[in-house]
């Protein structure tokens, strides 16, 4: 019995010593990785780009080094070169279950022995306020991974305060509330600074929308007071188009910001036969408009800084090709948008289909020939055609709906 008691004591001591060792290890993890965040922000503040690059994980280092080495980036104050000073205002470690909702934590955990993430409020002073930086406290998600016993930065991105704060993971500070206002304005298409000054906007004007509806410019009245569209329901003012279709195009291999209405007018006749019945053209007008609209909010070609290409990869866009019948169809559906059963704008993909056939129901892809088929039958309106292709598809788990803008 004595031996048993002795053995039990030994086991308990072992268990206690192991658990205390783990406790120390967790604290060390936070302390050491936090130091790296401090060093990172300090390097930005001092313009110490060697340290800034050294602190990056291998996977990012070369790309960041390339950006730093490009003299034009420094000259034009692009990216991190825009920062005049940076100082940490507040910082907190985030638990894995929170981080998993914000980034690809499981993949990071496969690549790194240890991962730690922080919500960091950094007080920036910048050369020029833009959609990436504003003067005041900006909030970043900084994710670190352990590479050969050293903590390295694997991600530094805008913190989604609009998710973190309602979920109770914010700081509750005044700076944070101000940053949230800026983020909310950004979601609505306005890039504003801390003082609420508009820096940049991609929101169509009331006048622009009336013109899209086919109303004569001279007849347009003052904008009425009312509920404004928000989020991705705000009709974009312009779309960035990468010209890749023809080497004879003077804008070949350039990304051009194009008036959104002009874009839709110069796509539809290149996609739908302009001689087709009006309901078919209206269905096409909805698909073309909402495809472009979706991509303004979901940039498709990040390395080209373009929302869409002017080719069949997206929609065929050719300058000055508008036709009256297709423009009339666009005017007739002006002010009407499409949303999926979750209330979000979705990618209204389409394909040619087969002449004389309706195409596949709920495929998530409208058939161009299918819209001609339905219009000839006279059994479906353009909205019913949209329902036929997009309801209960990968784009919308239930029925799609229209919204006004």
């Amino acid at each position: 019995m004595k031996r048993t008691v002795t053995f039990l004591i030994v086991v308990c001591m072992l268990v206690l010593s192991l658990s205390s060792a783990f406790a120390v290890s967790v604290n060390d993890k936070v302390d050491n990785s936090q130091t790296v965040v401090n060093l990172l922000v300090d390097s930005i503040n001092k313009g110490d780009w060697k340290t800034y690059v050294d602190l990056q994980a291998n996977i990012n280092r070369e790309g960041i080094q390339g950006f730093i080495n490009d003299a034009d980036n420094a000259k034009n104050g692009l990216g991190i070169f825009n920062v005049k000073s940076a100082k940490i205002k507040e910082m907190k470690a985030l638990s894995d279950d929170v981080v998993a909702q914000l980034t690809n934590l499981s993949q990071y955990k496969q690549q790194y022995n240890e991962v730690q993430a922080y919500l960091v409020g950094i007080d920036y002073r910048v050369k020029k306020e833009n959609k990436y930086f504003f003067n005041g406290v900006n909030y970043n998600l900084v994710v670190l991974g352990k590479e050969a016993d050293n903590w390295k930065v694997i991600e530094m991105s805008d913190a989604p305060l609009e998710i973190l704060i309602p979920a109770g993971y914010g700081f509750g500070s005044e700076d944070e509330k101000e940053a949230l206002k800026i983020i909310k304005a950004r979601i609505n298409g306005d890039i504003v600074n801390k003082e609420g000054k508009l820096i940049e906007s991609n929101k169509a004007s009331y006048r622009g929308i009336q013109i899209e509806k086919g109303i004569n410019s001279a007849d347009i009245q003052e904008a009425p007071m009312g509920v404004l569209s928000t989020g991705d329901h705000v009709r974009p003012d312009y779309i960035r188009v990468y010209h890749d279709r023809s080497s004879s195009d003077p804008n070949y291999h350039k990304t051009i910001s194009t008036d959104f209405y002009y874009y839709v007018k110069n796509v539809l006749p290149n996609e739908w036969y302009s001689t087709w019945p009006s309901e078919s053209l209206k269905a096409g007008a909805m698909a073309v408009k909402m495809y472009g609209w979706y991509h303004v909010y979901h940039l498709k070609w990040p390395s080209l800084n373009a929302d869409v290409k002017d080719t069949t990869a997206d929609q065929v866009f050719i300058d000055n090709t508008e036709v009256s019948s297709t423009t009339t169809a666009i005017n007739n559906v002006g002010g009407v948008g499409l949303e999926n059963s979750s209330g979000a704008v979705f990618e209204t993909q389409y394909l040619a289909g087969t002449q004389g056939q309706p195409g596949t129901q709920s495929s998530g892809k409208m058939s161009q020939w299918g819209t001609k088929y339905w219009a000839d039958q006279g059994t479906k309106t353009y909205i019913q055609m949209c329902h036929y292709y997009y309801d209960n598809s990968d784009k919308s788990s239930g029925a799609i709906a229209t919204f006004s803008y």
Partner: protein
Amino acid sequence: MNRFFILLFSVIFLLSFTSCSNETKKLNTNPEQQLNQSQNTQLKQNIQTDLYQISIPKEWTAEKLDGNILAFKKENKKIGGLDIIGYYPEQPISQLEPNHSEVIESKTLEGFFTEVVKEKLKITPPAASGETTVTEQVHLFFIIKEKKIAYDLYFNTADVDEQTALNIAKSLKLK
């Protein structure tokens, strides 16, 4: 009785120790090791961009376009390419498919450094073009969730056989 207790505690202690060590054990699932085993020796031309490197057959050419995009050509005819596309985790996989395409076959591939979805697509020109030519392409979408992008490696199936496409896909390495 004492011996029984000693034995019981020893077994519990050993078991708990074993389970702890299992938590830190790393499985040897290095995809690069697996990929090197099937490296095709025919891919003798290594293409380097700022973001990635990839190997293609020596008789092909790779045209480097803006934004680290590639166009593969054989005897001056475009037979495939590599695009970089925005990826949004909350959106369906069809977000990666070009407009005007229809999916013939889709599957997720194993053994790559990231999630790879292979799709065989039928691509038709716009109805208004009056053309009816159908192009069949195989697309390999390398999804990089944390960067919200996907590398779209694609080939015309009439010009590039599936094994060559897969071998080229296996040679893709991000920097």
